[in-house]
């Protein structure tokens, strides 16, 4: 079983669009995993039917038991996150400020505080219209994206791939360069970088490549909207060359990409000619790199 993880660093470069295209190309040969839990969008293109929904807990939060609280104020004095709110005759915890450290729980002289599991999101396994399954998740507002939810999505997608004997897992990776993206890259056979010729995207690309080197994950790149700025496009290509990363293809600024998303289709479904062929070729190259490994 091989894992292809699509990442971009900067948002809005077309990461999800390319992931969806690969998943559409492979149809029932792959399991799809959406690790972009901050902005989980893959289900908009593929969703068919939710098979399973689980609540996802991570970390703790403090809760004050009103009956035991003597309103002494020690918790409020010691809390470093200003998470304790004073009400007329007892204290309350503001869950959006509480970081779950448990100091108040340890020091409360009346044992009026308990630590409870914090609900941070929902986790789904769905049937999708390419005759396979997708594992995805949604973070609640203010929920912390710690990489744990991402790890859970990946783990479940591996289980599904094993159970259904699929050869590939196509992963929509997390954005940025922090803990969630490291989690989404863990165990990857190849990382596909989707970038665009803007100064901020190039900046992020460089940081993501640094990360990949550290984890020794092979990578390949697609430049999206490549005609937006030819100078930066050239700079990206030079950077790829220096780092021995193959450029699989370039897409010029193309309104079809927007139209495809608007009609809830993958780009190679919307345009069954040029784009379909290009994506097929991208996949062939990816497969070659994976097998060479």
């Amino acid at each position, binding site marked *: 079983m091989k894992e292809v993880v699509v990442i971009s*660093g*900067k*948002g*809005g*470069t077309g990461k*999800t669009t390319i992931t969806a295209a690969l998943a559409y190309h492979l149809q029932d040969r792959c399991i799809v995993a959406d690790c972009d839990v*901050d*902005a*989980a*969008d893959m289900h*908009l293109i593929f969703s068919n039917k939710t098979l399973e929904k689980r609540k996802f807990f991570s*970390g*703790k939060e403090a809760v004050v038991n009103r009956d035991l609280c003597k309103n002494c104020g020690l918790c409020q004095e*010691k809390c*470093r*996150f200003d998470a304790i709110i004073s009400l007329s005759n007892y204290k309350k915890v503001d869950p*959006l400020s509480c*970081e*779950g*450290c*448990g*100091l108040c729980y*340890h*020091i409360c002289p009346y044992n009026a505080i308990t630590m409870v599991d914090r609900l941070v999101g929902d986790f789904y396994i769905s049937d999708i219209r390419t005759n396979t399954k997708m594992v995805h998740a*949604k*973070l*609640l*507002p*203010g*929920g*912390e*994206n710690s990489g744990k939810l991402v790890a859970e999505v990946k783990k479940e997608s591996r289980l599904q791939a094993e159970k259904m004997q699929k050869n590939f897992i196509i992963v929509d990776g997390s*954005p*940025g*360069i*922090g*803990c969630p993206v490291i989690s989404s890259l863990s165990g990857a056979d190849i990382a596909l970088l989707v970038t*665009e*010729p*803007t*100064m*901020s995207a190039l*900046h*992020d690309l460089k*940081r993501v490549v640094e990360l990949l080197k550290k984890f020794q994950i092979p990578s390949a790149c697609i430049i999206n*909207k490549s005609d*937006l*700025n030819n100078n*930066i496009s050239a700079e990206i290509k030079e950077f790829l060359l220096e780092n021995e990363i193959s450029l699989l293809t370039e897409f010029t*600024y193309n309104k079809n990409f*927007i139209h495809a*998303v*608007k009609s*809830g289709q993958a780009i190679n479904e919307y345009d069954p000619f040029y784009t379909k062929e290009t994506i097929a070729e991208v996949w062939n190259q990816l497969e070659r790199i994976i097998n060479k490994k």
Partner: protein
Amino acid sequence: MYKIAVASGKGGTGKTTVSTNLSHYLAQTQAVLLADMDVEEPDSHIFMQGQLWQEKKVYKEVPTLIEDKCIACGKCKEVCAFNAITMLGKRVLFFNELCHSCYSCIELCPVQAIEMKPQKLGLFTQINDKNLTFLEARLDIGQEQAVPLIKQSFDFIAENIPAEIGIIDSPPGSSCPVVETVKNCDFVFLVTEPSPFGLNDLRIAVETVKLLKKDFAIIINKDDGEENIIRDYCTKENLELLAAIPEKQSIAELYSKGSLIYQSDADFLAEIEKIAEKVTTLMRRKR
């Protein structure tokens, strides 16, 4: 200062485009702050000129062991909720980047063998360009705690920057760093694009902002001028649609070069004017 957060559910919708252009436009007539709180990947500086005014290192408090006092009882490791303390036999190891500076270990150590010392978390950069003050908060690589840096940024702004209007470029998403940013602002502009992805992410952003009980208005970027799902959504949910920046390749090109767009695109300018007018109304209401 009246602070307006510019936020979006997902990255790449045009948050930075709106905040940089709006703040420059407003600064033609008044003192304005532009703050980049996208602490992991701040990139508004690309659009800035002017004089570097000051750089300031930002610290967080982390524990350090007073070895001759430690009795290796393991209490600190036991109470640390963030797994920032490990014990190998009698040796205590602290992992500073995991530390939330909650002080539990210090407060609960039975022999006062722990003290706090500052560790560098990131850097503030302040640039002054006539009426416009720019503040960038950048997290050091390897540091994971965006929230304390954002908190300190707002303290820094309150102490150092006298402008009456603040435009705050928020981190993307809906997790803790966004919550911390929006909590500290008076009003929110939500930037989105007319696609099912944009709508899905906008819904989450609206949910977040409502949870924080903040007033907000919506700005469409890459608007195709047709009836679209964002316009429908705003009508249906009775949300204020403030401006719609047209979908034009020329705008994207200007952005990619790091140029200010309102200076050379009339359509864009018209939308920025609408947003600026809203800012003026909000300020007047405040007074």
